[in-house]
């Protein structure tokens, strides 16, 4: 049985990832607040690059690594290969990401950015090695495993291309212009790493958390092939021809894959056996609405790009915000408070269950902080995007402030969970 069980060494590495990722999220929101003017302009500028990498690496990737160290044994039904590799990867990634963000923010494309790139790539490769060695002795291959392995492969390729781009700043050796490669780098990361991984992991966890009767994982297989086919076509076609009319057709293939996955989530939702859906799951499900919204923006970006209309650049920023701060953040904001309470609960109560009355994992959450976090996040989306559409600086600042409040609630909530004190009742005293 591959269950969540308390292992002090595993707990430390998982919690370290959650804590550092939470601090990166808080940093991201503060950086966002100080970059309102830059966000209105072109996406290829130092502060936007710093923001994107804080969101993608410091926030998204670090927390996914932490969660995966805990969940891989559950999802892949086999024990994790090595905790030492987890620490080695973490120790390389932390300074690497910090240096990369600083190098982008102050735009220093020299040694600092190059060392940062090497550290990040090394950390990612060690993570991949750990996942592959975890899978080495596994007999049966499942679709969840396919998603995870493929996403790891895309992550490594994204990091390799990212490193090449870093060196290209200084040595300018890539055969095409930097922006063309940046587009490929970004979509390898978004669709290859985040989307593949999120579909694979949530494909297993959503039915588990919703306690769903739906078992048709064939839909996930269709999603796997369609999304990967679209991404490969986008990379090949994008490399040779840039954005052109065919890009819309490729997008359709990808959208078909995502719709197949969203249909799977919908079927899981309607066939759940528990009627009540908690706030953390509501936020998780809401993240898929944001994913759909971000994809809805893409045809407009292609349309305006082909007409060489500057709106394409503005829409690209909206697309980036919907992806990184919308979809990925909403998903993490929700799933953190589904997974972390279990991890903390197992540490405090697993050895006591049955002997005394213990709280349930969900009781460890603070509903107050979770509600404020959700409200602030929703307000951020409404006010910031409205501010962007109506060019209202004030609304953008209100939105950015709401995002900072979201991050503060998130960090406080993480601390609240990690500082939890064991609280029990003896049955003979009830």
């Amino acid at each position, binding site marked *: *049985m591959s*269950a*969540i069980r308390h292992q002090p060494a595993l707990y430390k590495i998982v919690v370290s990832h959650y804590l550092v990722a939470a601090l990166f999220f808080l940093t991201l929101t503060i950086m966002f607040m100080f970059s309102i003017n830059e966000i209105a302009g072109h996406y290829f500028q130092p502060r936007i690059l710093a923001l994107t990498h804080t969101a993608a690496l410091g926030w998204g990737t670090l927390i996914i690594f932490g969660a995966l160290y805990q969940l891989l044994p559950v999802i892949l*039904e086999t024990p994790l290969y090595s905790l030492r590799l987890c620490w080695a990867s973490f120790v390389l990634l932390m300074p690497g990401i910090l240096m990369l963000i600083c190098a982008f923010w102050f735009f220093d494309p020299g040694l600092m950015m190059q060392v940062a790139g090497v550290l990040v790539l090394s950390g990612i490769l060690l993570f991949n090695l750990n996942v592959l060695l975890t899978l080495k002795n596994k007999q049966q291959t499942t679709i969840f495993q396919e998603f995870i392995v493929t996403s790891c492969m895309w992550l490594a390729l994204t990091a390799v291309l990212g490193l090449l781009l870093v060196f290209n700043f200084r040595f300018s050796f890539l055969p095409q212009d930097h922006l063309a490669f940046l587009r490929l780098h970004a979509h390898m990361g978004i669709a290859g790493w985040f989307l593949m991984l999120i579909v694979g992991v949530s494909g297993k966890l959503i039915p*588990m958390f919703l*306690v769903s009767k739906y078992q048709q994982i064939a839909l996930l297989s269709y999603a796997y092939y369609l999304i990967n086919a679209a991404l490969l076509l986008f990379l090949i076609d994008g490399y040779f021809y840039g954005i052109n009319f065919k890009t819309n057709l490729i997008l359709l293939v990808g959208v078909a894959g995502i719709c197949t996955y969203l249909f799977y989530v919908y079927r899981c939702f309607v066939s759940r056996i*528990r*009627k009540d859906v908690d706030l953390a799951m509501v936020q998780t499900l809401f993240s898929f609405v944001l994913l759909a919204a971000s994809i809805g923006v893409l045809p407009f970006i292609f349309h305006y790009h082909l007409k060489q209309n500057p709106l394409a650049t503005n829409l690209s920023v909206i697309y980036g915000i919907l992806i990184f701060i919308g979809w990925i953040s909403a998903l993490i904001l929700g799933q953190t408070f589904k997974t972390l309470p*279990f991890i903390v609960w197992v540490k405090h109560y697993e050895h006591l*269950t049955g002997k005394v009355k213990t709280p349930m994992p969900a009781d460890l959450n603070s509903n107050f902080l979770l509600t404020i976090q959700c409200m602030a996040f929703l307000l951020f989306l409404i006010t910031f995007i409205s501010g962007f559409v109506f060019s209202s600086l004030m609304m953008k600042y209100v939105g950015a402030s709401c995002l900072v409040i979201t991050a503060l609630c998130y960090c406080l909530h993480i601390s609240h969970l990690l500082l939890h004190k064991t609280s029990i009742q003896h049955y003979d005293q009830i």
Partner: protein
Amino acid sequence: MIKFDIPACLSGMDVALENGLKTVIDPELHVNIVDLGLIYGITVSQKELLIAVEMTLSTRFCPMGESIVSAVNHCLERLFDQFHISVNLVWDPEWNFESITPAGRKALWGTSTLDPI
């Protein structure tokens, strides 16, 4: 429905066992494991002073499986301290949604019918 195999001289123990196991709550569903239909059978041997529980989990790789199994052990050790406890996980028959008792269904979705959603 739990199948009990209990010596006649220990009549009433089935109720105590069932009520005791109802204090073990599934951490995600917040419903007790008896009403979820996870307990298949309980055999009590007075000669060996043994309570043997045959149970299952909602999924073979239930992330909280070990917690639930250890809770069953601890619960029965607490209530029947003169007995040894043995918990055996079985996967045949596989647990399904029909295994949930009417009380469990009511707790999960507010009505005791099988497929309200």
